[in-house]
């Protein structure tokens, strides 16, 4: 069973905490569905998904060694 660790940042940490795991996820599309089931508040939040430090815009395959991060809109500076 593949277990993927997700790290969250910014305002999303209020919903999910800094770090959590999700089981049996094969790609970023299924991740998104599963995430919003597990954390319904995420549905009305804007965020990007990064896999191995790159923001992905298309569905991307995941494996146990993938580093997945949820990034809300940036507010540096």
């Amino acid at each position, binding site marked *: 069973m593949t277990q993927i660790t997700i790290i969250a940042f910014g305002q999303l940490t209020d919903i999910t905490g800094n770090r959590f795991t999700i089981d049996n996820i094969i790609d970023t599309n299924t991740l998104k569905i599963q995430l919003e089931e597990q954390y319904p508040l995420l549905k009305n939040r804007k965020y990007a998904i990064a896999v191995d430090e790159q923001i992905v815009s298309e569905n991307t395959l995941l494996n146990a060694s993938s580093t997945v991060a949820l990034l809300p809109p940036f507010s540096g*500076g």
Partner: protein
Amino acid sequence: MTDKKPKNIFVQGAIAASFIGESIYKHQTQKNIGAHSIFLGQVRSDVIDNKTVTAIEYTSYEAMALEKMHEIRESIFSKYSLTCMHVYHSLGTVAAGEICLFVFTSSAHRKAAIDACEETVERIKAELPIWGKELFEGEGYQWKENSLGV
């Protein structure tokens, strides 16, 4: 991509005025420089729903931010004729009135330094995974959102 390791840009807490002064001083030996451009971001004490922002607490996805900053640096150096560029951004808590971002570009003539500095600041705000949590006086907070150039 180059194989150079990305430079660290993060400073814990506020960026001290003395550090900024020291950075300027260090460039005296580089006599091919004719212009410096400096941008300083300062934490503003906004009032939101009658609550005053007393500090911003910054967090970042550091590995990704440093990688991205490296890309920005490469692209700015290929676009402008710069002698050097230095970027520092705070992490952790920075009180209102303190400096949280320091961008410093130098070139032989002013236009390159000024334009490169401006573009770097805009790209930092838009592209680096950094988040600011605005802490209110007393208690409570709200997550900051960057506006575009306002």
